[in-house]
């Protein structure tokens, strides 16, 4: 593999990893802060993509569609937390798994009713529809670079919010001792609602920005969910930094194994996970 090809593949891997990070960050945030294992997280990614499809076609503008879809996702997150998740805080993980798996079925059925089962596509917004020629054969689409940049910005934003703001401090405090935070007069319920809705919105935003790059199809959420769990487990459940590092590792390993070890490529990310767990049983950055 010559150096240019290596760099292309590295770009592919990083780009895939960044997108995985965006999806996985919401999952790990909700688990870390609230102790809730949300298996329907992939469904939120799907919801984002379908909403983007719908609003791009009704408003004609990707930007407007993205904003509307993200707001709807945020509201959906609040609704789910207030009506369903709120009943789970004092229960065990099995109950959480049952409820959130149930949600997967509900969202799949809703998707099928509202949009049917044909694969749908969203066109890349014209202002991002360019490509940068890298060699005379390959070019790199501007939109994909934009998505990578967006993932990085969101990642930095999350890092700063959690580590540098009062809200972040409360989140971190709630993470280590819910009851104590409550005793100190903080409305922990409101905090939880906010965190859960943010988690949902992050997955939905990943779905929205992915929509022009992928095919919007039934079941698209389940596929990313598995990769996300690998990312979260490698990074350490609940760690945003871990999700970032884990996602890049998964993206890069998956890309290079696809080319260099095609026979093993479907296993490689799981082997990576197993190796990480052997060395660090709680993941790279677990608390």
């Amino acid at each position, binding site marked *: 593999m010559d150096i240019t*090809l290596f760099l292309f593949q590295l770009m592919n891997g990083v780009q895939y990893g960044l997108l995985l990070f965006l999806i996985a960050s919401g999952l790990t945030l909700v688990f870390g802060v609230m102790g809730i294992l949300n298996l329907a997280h992939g469904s939120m990614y799907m919801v984002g993509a379908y909403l983007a499809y719908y609003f791009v076609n009704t408003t004609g503008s990707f930007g407007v569609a993205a904003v509307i879809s993200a707001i709807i996702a945020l509201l959906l997150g609040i609704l789910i937390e207030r009506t369903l998740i709120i009943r789970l805080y004092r229960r065990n993980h099995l109950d959480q798994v049952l409820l959130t798996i149930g949600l997967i079925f509900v969202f799949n059925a809703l998707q099928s009713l509202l949009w*049917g089962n044909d*694969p749908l*596509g969203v066109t890349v917004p014209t202002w991002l529809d360019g490509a940068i020629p890298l060699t005379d054969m390959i070019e790199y*689409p501007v939109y994909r670079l934009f998505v990578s940049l967006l993932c990085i910005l969101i990642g930095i934003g999350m890092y700063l919010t959690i580590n540098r703001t009062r809200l972040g401090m409360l989140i971190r405090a709630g993470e280590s001792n819910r009851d104590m935070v409550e005793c100190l007069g903080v409305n922990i319920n409101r905090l939880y609602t906010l965190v859960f809705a943010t988690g949902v919105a992050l997955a939905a935003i990943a779905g929205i920005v992915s929509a022009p790059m992928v*095919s919007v*199809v039934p079941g698209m959420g389940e596929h990313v969910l598995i990769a996300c769990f690998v990312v979260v487990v490698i990074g350490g459940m609940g760690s945003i930094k871990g999700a970032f590092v884990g996602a890049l590792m998964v993206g890069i390993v998956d890309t290079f194994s*696809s*080319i260099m070890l095609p026979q093993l490529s479907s296993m490689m990310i799981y082997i990576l996970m197993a190796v990480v767990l052997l060395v660090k049983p709680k993941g790279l950055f677990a608390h």
Partner: protein
Amino acid sequence: MQNKKNRLRNLVTTCATAGLISAGAAIAAEPVKVGVMLPFSGVYAALGDAGRNGLKMALQENTAQLHGRKIEFLEMDTEAKPERAPELASSLLDKDKADFIIGPVHSGVAMGMSKVLRNKDAIMIIPNAGAAAATGPLCAPNVFRTSFSSWQPSYPMGKVALDAGYKKVVTMSWNYGMGKESLDAFEESFTAGGGEIVKKILVPFPKTEFQPYITDIAATAPDAVFVFFAGGGAVKFVKDYAALGLNGKIPLLGSGFLTEGTLEAQGDSAEGILTTLHYADNLDNPANKKFRQNYQDSFGKPADIYAVQGYDAGLLIAQAINTLGGDISDRKALIQAMESSTIDSPRGKFTFSKAHNPVQDIYLRKVEHGENQVLSIAAQALEDPARGCKL
């Protein structure tokens, strides 16, 4: 959406009523039981819906051929899960005593069904699954197919590629039965004519992270690329291929499923792709025009290849019942009637091979302005070699 549902319901009801009225004429006649084993949920749900729509439309249009027999549909959702297939098939066969069992979409499910239904009393009609084995080593007197064998749509493309002057080709597909069989069929005719497969890429199913592979193809710089992908994967592949700038630089060839039911989602990125298939939306024949019009009116959306194949399964049943004057109790006679029928399909007339697979024309199509335009007939009356079939 609501509208569509209503229309569908109307059609189904009309279908049932039409059957009921004519059954009044022949009071003694039991209904013909048609089991339907298609995926109505999961990844292939769209294909299952289309197949069912086509099947019911054919039987409704041809009530006159049924000699007063009404049709009773028994529907099972396979969810495209192979492990569920034997149980569902057994239930339709033993409990419901179905006369015909139509299904499935997915080749894995076809294997499970075939295991249970081969050489049994019910007639199995496959309206999609292309697995070579179903009309190859596993062929049986009571198993018919109204779709295609995996070999059929891909084999003619080898010659098309050679005629275009391509010598070195990269092939790519998901690593599963249908994909591998399609690549093999292409390779068979392409290498026989002196072409060379410089790289064969098999992607784990159902992974759609195609970018690394496409980067690799660009580095290999072949004369052309031949792929098998369908549905959502086809959309993603074609978009990735164009996004990395390869569309227009390295010609993309494919089994026709690459651009079936996916063109709207693929948009501009599909322009110029060449594919071979046993159907194209704008085929210029009366059966196709009538079929497309009726389908659009009944279901509120354009028909696709899966609807055609389901429709032809319905035509096959109606025609066989007609030939036998409504009495299908003699299974030998029924099979004989089916074997010798010529189906006036929207894809053009076709007959059945000894292995009960369609002997059909394969069309060469090119995507132009978001449509599969027929360029020529790539192979006339192409018959699957049915390797391993002893019928």
